[in-house]
């Protein structure tokens, strides 16, 4: 071992830090139903500032519904959501967005005919302050503002290493890259909380590794809190600080990955034990 390597192994351990982190979002006793169908039943958990929080569970467990509740797309019939210490009333998705919650979707939801650059630029629209009038005139302050936004977008393009497709319409890109552009658009909002709905679905091994790297880097470089839904257990165990497990709309486990992995309820849920 050389001097360079011995010292490196003493790098700080990230997991133990979660204990001191402040709470960013808290879900208390939330239930959601569509007509007679109960999607979520009495779920409570929290998301701490700066952590990567995974939500896992078998198909139909209510994971995506949970994300939709967090970003205001669904309104739960019961329970409360506390965002940055304030209890939140009914909130529309764009309000959630303006308060710092961004998300990506299970099925890529980009503007297919627009370029990568324009798609990511669209993520900045909430940060544009000049009125529509000024943006049409596009002189002086509006121009300066646009340049400032473009700089931010270029940062993201550099960060996600998608320079080569900057001017390519996203509809022409392979799926893995579209997912990356979608992440870019979410990042353009400079969110405090980033919700990722199956960021690695349908990807090959190499694309998954790249995406994992980006998620870790986003978390580390920008300090963004991340909540993600993912089916690839290897990815979940490697990436997340804490995992919450849902099954049939109920929470069945919550804790660090290794603990959740060993939990009998979780094993049963995945292997299928009769209820």
């Amino acid at each position, binding site marked *: *071992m*050389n*001097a*360079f*390597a*011995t*010292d*490196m*192994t*003493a*790098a*700080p351990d*990230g997991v133990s830090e979660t204990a001191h982190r402040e709470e960013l979002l808290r879900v208390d006793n939330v239930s959601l139903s569509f007509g007679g169908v109960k999607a979520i039943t009495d779920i409570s958990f929290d998301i701490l500032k700066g952590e990567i929080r995974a939500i896992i569970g078998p198909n139909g467990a209510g994971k995506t519904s949970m994300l939709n509740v967090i970003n205001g797309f669904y309104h739960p019939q019961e329970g409360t959501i506390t965002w940055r210490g304030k209890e939140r009333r009914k909130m529309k998705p764009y309000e959630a967005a303006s308060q710092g919650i961004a998300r990506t979707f299970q099925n890529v939801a980009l503007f297919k005919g627009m370029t990568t650059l324009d798609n990511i630029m669209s993520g900045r629209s909430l940060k544009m302050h000049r009125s529509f009038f000024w943006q049409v005139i596009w002189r002086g302050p509006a121009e300066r503002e646009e340049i400032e936004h473009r*700089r931010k977008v*270029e*940062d993201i*393009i*550099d*960060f996600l*290493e998608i*320079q*080569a497709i*900057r001017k390519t319409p996203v509809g022409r890109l392979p799926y893995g890259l579209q997912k990356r552009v979608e992440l870019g658009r979410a990042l353009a909002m400079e969110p405090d909380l980033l919700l990722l709905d199956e960021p690695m679905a349908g990807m090959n*091994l*190499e694309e998954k*590794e790249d995406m994992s*790297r980006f998620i*870790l*880097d986003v978390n*580390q*470089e920008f300090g963004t809190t991340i909540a993600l839904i993912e089916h690839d257990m290897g990815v979940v165990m490697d990436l997340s600080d804490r995992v919450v497990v849902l099954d049939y709309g109920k929470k069945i486990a919550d804790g660090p990955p290794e603990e959740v992995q060993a939990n009998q309820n979780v094993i049963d849920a995945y292997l299928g034990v009769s209820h």
Partner: protein
Amino acid sequence: MVGSASASPRGEDTFPKILLHNAKVLGTRTAFREKDFGIWQSWTWSEVCEEIRAFSIGLKSLGIEAGDKVAIVGSNRPRLYWSMVAAQAVGAVPVPVYSDSVAEEMAYVLGHAEVKFAVVEDQEQVDKLLSMSEEVPTLKDVIYDEMRGLRDYDHTHLHSYESLQNKGRELQAQNSSLPREWEEGFAGGKGDDVAVMLYTSGTTGRPKGVMLSFDNLAVSARNANVFDHLDETEEVLAYLPMAWIGDHVFSLAQAFTAGYCVNCPESMDTIDVDRREIAPTYFFAPPRVFEMLLTHIMVQMEDAGKTKRAMFDYFMKIARKVGEKILNGEDVDAKDRILYRLGELLVYGPLKNRMGLTRMKVGYTAGEAIGPEIFRFYRSLGLNLKQLYGQTEASVYITLQPDGEIFGDTVGKPAPDVELKIADNGEVMYRSPGVFVGYFKNDEATEKTKTADGWVHTGDAGIIAENGHLKIIDRAKDVGKLNDGALFAPKYIENKLKFFPNIKEAVAFGHERDMVGVFLNIDLTAVGSWAERNNVNYASYQELAAHPDVYSMVESHVDQVNRDLSREPMMAGAQIRRFLILHKELDADDGELTRTQKVRRSFIADRYAPLIEALYDGSKTKHVRTEVTFEDGRKGAIEATVEIRDMEPHVPGKDYQEAAE
């Protein structure tokens, strides 16, 4: 006169001294550009000098000493080029390493070179270095360019380029005599000091560390600048691996001696766009790049509208007829000349613009033989594309094609100051100012390669044609014989095959065997586009390669090669009798190609032994299982049943028949 001075064969002898000179006389000219955040950022020579000085002084504060080896790992970035000169300024020796090599390969090189410091691009490389601490016990400090992902690493022996450079600046601010001391530090440097160590990619065995002196590089670079009239107004694109001698000479030695501008692309995927924006005046590319550019154009033309295609075909016919003649300054009748002009306006001009070669004064291709069709295509467009023959051990230049003396099958005349001779066994030998100092820690190999009076064995078999041009036949040790005594030059056959756009790679076998058998790789771009047009569905390379229609198409190519071979008396006996299309693409990660994409014959022979056996035992198909290595070192396997086809040889040309009787 700045221009003539920088292009003269004489001048300062080491790169740090040349840097100071350039900062003085070319101070405000742009020396480096890098595309970052979508914009070309640029640095003048005097700014580069300041950057290098600050970093160099920062390096010194880490305790770097004269003679220390500094590994440089990453893609082409100004900062990595600067670190090489910064290291040279304090007497250290930079060792650029192929950044995409797998950890095991890199560990061998770094361990062998005994590197103490490493300047790397990003986290990927830092992690790689961390994983090889056992093999590289000498490594002390690592400096990285890009912070991303490294924030939480322990920074005791890890430094960011910026922090080190800032430290250098602080030290200068505290002690105003420091810059002068820094300059005095290398003022006594001599031309015969070792400037850089480059590891040859090693077609055979372990890579060897080629030590090149400042004189080797500076003199060769200046000679080349004079030969092609290059001065400080040139623009080059630095996109080839920094560990390769070609890039070292074009993007550093020649850039410094001529004072021209080096442009670093935004990323490896944006090279085509970046080249279009820069339009380099001096351009170097291995044949592969020219092949790819041409394939792209041809594929796009297939999809173009009728009018466009007719126009393209018509003017390309004109270009083929008179383009090269016009380029060579020969007489062409007035009507064709006018048509060619019109073609320039309508087709050639836009095409060159598309490829980013509009301003190209001189272009070179080397490393492997380029297909005559491809070569002619570029020249007929009026692009001064030439071939050269070179080696790491020669600081690149051995032979060059002078303007106007371009022949497809030869690699040119000896470069300035180069002496050339053919040894008794047919091996090409040379002696020049660029001849390397020796292999690092390998005197045995040095003695084997370099004679006492300075002649170097190239390892290539060749002949000097009547016009004084060198013609390379094959690797000297690869030229063999079939059991019936016929001459077997594998590369000669392989190159003929590879000139078909559909064939990407070929490996021929036949030495001490009854007949010639060949492995082929199809070109996924060309064949894929063909498949699309002909409604052939496929999911993977493997599936496409095994498609019967693809086999038939390739069979016709092989037949064409046999016909060509049958016409050449020397080669007619070595026609291809059986061939197969491999179920996977040959890949450097699996050790099948070198990092410069040359086939590693013996390795492939080992790895695919069952397939070779099948080539020679007459079977029609063979089931194989092949292990593959991913970039991170993990392994997987692919299985396939490979079809083998028989070929009917052509009757050798008449001359040969008579000679044989």
